[in-house]
């Protein structure tokens, strides 16, 4: 029984030993398979050396990467011999400083940290058998025996060429981006205008140097501050931003910038909205140009215009005064002639008014000009109580100021003639009309008075008026259209060559 038990224990013990051995063998098989797999990997170079650095193992990955066969390197050279010598020297120098000990340039430099138990992974340029080079990332591990003594080193390397290319490409892209940003910034900074961007609520997000000079504030002070806060009229400045946001752009919007030291500068703003790639509104881009000199020139020109206008009108007033004085001592039948003369002078004065009202004085709006003449004649010849009314109907055509003088005097003569002779009973209507007819414009002065026959009986005074009409029509290069018989009233049609200025090509003198 006791023997039987002992046999059983022995059997159990033997069974246990066999199981442990099987496990150990299995583990060894697995570890061996793993090591073989690593050593046979074509993607890693695995180089094992002895303690002195002489290569003992050179796997297929190393053969593939470096171009040597294992036989060509094993027991012959160290990994330092297939590495960039300058890098090895540089590494030795750097490690000597880092670790405070002299490290010999050579294999020691490659494994020194690993030999001290420090994890070491670094970049190294390997040199192939054919002399070509490639960047590698090398991981170094010390191989130790059971007593922890170093028996060699394992250098596992991966070819870093692809990553280096990507990095180089990325660096190129980064440099290109930096160059582009520098170029864009240079353009912004070299602009003579003060430039800025704001967000949609009018808060400044970027400025250039000119904007700093305009406001007397630094870039840091401006960015984050409200746009409106740097102008004499903040409400108008805020309105500018709203206008841009509403209309997507504004041009020639005048504002007066107020610098920190109180200096004011009149600027003209051109601004547009700007968006990100997704078309989402980012804010407003605005360029402000100093228009101080332009404004001064405009003021000088206006001042000169006012001065000239004042002198001309005073001179005309003197002439009208002289006529008035003469009329005072003249027999009643002749007074009307003096009045007519005053009306002619008034027509010329009206023309000066219309021209001076124009910002650039290139053209005169005929319809507005006719209304002014009618108003002046009503006041000078008819008075408030008159039963004669002058009506104006005009298409928006324009004439150059040079032709406006004879044109105005022509209208004045025809209208005066109608006032004097068409309405013996003191009431009626006169109509002044200008319209485009084909390639000409037609001036029509009509009345609903007594007609030509009765007027024809009147002799000399209106003869002068008719002579003037003929002269003015010739001066304008036009023709008088023969009158058709009509039951009542008189209609005078005068066709004139196209005096128009191309539409949109001029500013109207009397809008």
């Amino acid at each position, binding site marked *: 029984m006791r023997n039987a038990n002992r046999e059983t224990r022995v059997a159990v013990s033997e069974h246990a030993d066999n199981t442990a051995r099987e496990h150990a063998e299995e583990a060894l098989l697995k570890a061996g398979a793993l090591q073989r797999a690593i050593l046979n990997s074509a993607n890693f170079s695995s180089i094992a050396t002895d303690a002195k650095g002489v290569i003992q193992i050179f796997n297929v990955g190393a053969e593939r990467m470096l171009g040597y066969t294992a036989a060509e390197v094993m027991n012959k050279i160290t990994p330092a011999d297939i590495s960039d010598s300058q890098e090895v020297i540089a590494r030795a120098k750097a490690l000597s400083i880092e670790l405070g000990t002299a490290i010999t340039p050579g294999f020691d430099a490659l494994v020194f940290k690993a030999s001290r138990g420090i994890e070491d992974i670094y970049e190294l340029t390997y040199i192939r058998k054919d002399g070509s080079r490639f960047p590698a990332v090398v991981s170094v591990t010390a191989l130790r025996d059971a007593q922890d003594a170093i028996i060699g080193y394992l250098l596992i390397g991966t070819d870093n060429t692809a990553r280096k290319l990507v990095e180089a490409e990325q660096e190129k892209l980064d440099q290109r981006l930096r160059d582009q940003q520098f170029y864009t910034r240079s353009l912004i900074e070299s602009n003579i205008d003060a430039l800025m961007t704001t967000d949609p609520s009018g808060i400044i997000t970027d400025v250039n140097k000119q904007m700093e000079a305009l406001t007397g504030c630094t870039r840091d002070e401006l960015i984050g501050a409200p746009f409106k806060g740097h102008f004499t009229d903040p409400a108008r400045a805020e309105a500018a931003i709203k206008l841009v946001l509403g209309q997507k752009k504004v041009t020639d919007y005048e504002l007066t910038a107020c610098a920190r030291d109180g200096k004011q500068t009149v600027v003209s703003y051109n601004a547009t909205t700007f968006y990100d790639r997704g078309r989402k509104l980012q804010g407003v881009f605005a360029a402000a140009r100093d228009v101080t000199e332009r404004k001064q020139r405009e003021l000088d020109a206006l001042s000169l215009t006012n001065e000239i206008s004042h002198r001309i009108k005073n001179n*005309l*007033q*003197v002439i009208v005064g002289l006529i*008035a004085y003469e009329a*005072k001592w003249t027999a009643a039948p002749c007074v009307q002639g003096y009045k007519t003369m005053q009306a002619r002078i008034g027509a010329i004065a009206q023309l000066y008014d219309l021209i001076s009202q124009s910002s650039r004085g290139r053209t005169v709006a005929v319809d507005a000009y006719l209304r002014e003449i009618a108003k002046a004649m009503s006041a000078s010849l008819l008075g408030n109580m008159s039963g004669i009314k002058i009506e104006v109907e005009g298409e928006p055509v324009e004439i150059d100021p040079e032709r406006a003088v004879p044109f105005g005097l022509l209208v004045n003569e025809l209208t005066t003639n109608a006032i004097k002779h068409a309405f013996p009973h003191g009431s009626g209507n006169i109509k002044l009309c200008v319209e485009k007819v084909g390639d000409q414009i037609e001036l029509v002065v009509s009345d609903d008075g007594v007609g030509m026959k009765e007027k024809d009986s009147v002799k000399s005074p209106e003869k002068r008026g008719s002579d003037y009409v003929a002269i003015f029509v010739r001066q304008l290069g036009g023709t008088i259209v023969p009158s058709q018989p009509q039951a009542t009233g008189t209609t005078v049609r005068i066709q004139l060559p196209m005096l128009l200025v191309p539409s949109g090509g001029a500013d109207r003198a009397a809008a």
Partner: protein
Amino acid sequence: MAVILIVEDDVFIREIAEMMIQDWGHQTLTASDVDEALLLLRSDLPIDALFTDIYLKAAVLGGCDLARQALVLRPNLRVLYTTGNSITEKMKALLIEEAHFLRKPYTQHQLQDSVNNMLTA
């Protein structure tokens, strides 16, 4: 009939205007600039209306300034402006409310209408 102060820097225009206004039975006082006019306005002389050119010698808008000061001195004063220049927005802002306006060159009839309108308004 009224007493009208005429302020005009051009002697001929001023005297012709004076002659016309007197012909209609009014009395006149005259001045050639703002300072002369203010001396009269500060005096005890009766003055019912001011007829002033806007552009007075060196003062581009002298007539506007004069009218404002004149109304401070004589709140019931009637005002008739005249000028040969266009009426700008700046000028409009300086004109006295309810004042009358006559454009140069004006005829005797236009002046008579304007004076009558001013005095009867």
